[in-house]
């Protein structure tokens, strides 16, 4: 496995740790999801809560892709976060794992189409866009979106992209700017 050789043990641990850290922070957003879902369900817009917060859950993948700059780091970052969450956050079981793969691959695709060269706004925006498209495609089947009325589909898609861009793009950029300024990234991949 040539691909595996480019990974150090500390990279794997790092991605898993970031996934868990982010997961622990996201736990605090569950109440936002609950309140929104409860408020919006009576008018048939319960899915909006998911659309609004999805960017947050896809952040580990996009950030991992940006931070480690290795092929597969976005996918692996999201997958590891999902694996740990499956055992520890718990109730969604295998569905978490599938979502993790779909979201991770979506984030990865953005770096693939920019040929792993654009660790800037272009790469992040591409990643936000591909994550939106890939996860939305999956939700067409999984959450039965293909049966929804067109205006709602468009609304969900737009909201999801905004969420991806705000959390996966803007917030990730702010975080990585801080990391760049503190010069921790270079040292993290040379042990």
């Amino acid at each position, binding site marked *: 496995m040539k691909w595996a050789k480019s990974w150090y043990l500390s990279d794997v641990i790092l991605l*898993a740790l970031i996934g868990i850290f982010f997961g622990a922070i996201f736990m605090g957003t569950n109440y936002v999801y609950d309140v929104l879902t409860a408020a919006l369900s009576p008018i048939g817009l319960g899915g909006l809560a*998911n659309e609004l917060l999805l960017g947050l859950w896809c952040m580990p993948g996009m950030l991992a892709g940006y931070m480690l700059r290795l092929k597969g780091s976005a996918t692996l970052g999201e997958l590891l976060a999902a694996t740990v969450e499956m055992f520890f956050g718990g109730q969604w079981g295998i*569905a978490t794992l599938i979502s993790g793969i779909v979201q991770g691959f979506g984030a990865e695709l953005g770096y693939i189409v920019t040929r792993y060269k654009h660790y800037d706004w272009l790469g992040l925006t591409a990643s936000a866009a591909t994550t939106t498209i890939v996860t939305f495609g999956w939700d067409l089947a999984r959450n039965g979106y293909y*049966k*929804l009325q067109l205006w709602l589909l468009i609304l969900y898609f737009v909201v999801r992209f905004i969420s991806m861009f705000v959390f996966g793009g803007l917030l990730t950029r702010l975080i990585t700017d801080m990391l760049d300024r503190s010069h921790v990234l270079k040292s993290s991949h040379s042990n």
Partner: protein
Amino acid sequence: MNPSIKLLLLFIIALEISFTTIISLNIALVILATLYLLWRRTSLKTLGWLLIVPLLPAIGLWSTQYINGTGDNAQMAWVLFTRIYAFVFTGATFTLTTDILELADALEQNWHLPAKFAYGVLAAYNLVPKIQHEVKVIRMAGLMRGQTLSFWSPKLYFKAILVSINWSQNLAQAMQSHGFVEDAPRTHYRHVPLRASDWSILVIGIGLLQIGAFAIPWR
């Protein structure tokens, strides 16, 4: 049963029911999963919890489809409602009966996952309680300086990543100093067998699922 085969079977089930629209099949899976969980002595409290937790998202999906769906929207609403429960209950047959250590062993021994991935994730997983605590510490440290760090504050994530970088290097170093060598062959203390019976359960399980999805004329 071999954890990796169990995971594969449940993965296939979850994938397939994402594309089928049969309410009875979803309910049948929930019942089968419940029976299995009872047989594995899962407490009633846990089962009750499994019923309550997905209720809100399930209602959300149900009402979205019922109010804003097209075609036979009531049917689709119930498909999605039961599908969520099928996900949760079939998933629980794995997460409540298997721990991550067994899965990591199986993936490494039976499927030749490089040891650094298996043990690296395990090392991080064991820090979960410490990580939860650390998030509180970071927030508290922020509060002491008059900064409220919320889930949209880049600083919160930045500090979490700094800690992650630090811990990941410490952990990797600790593992290496205890004799862990990346990409070197390993011997195993815990053996995870991959038996013919595991494969039969996988094949039979997938077969039954196809009968449920295509052959039985559910209503």
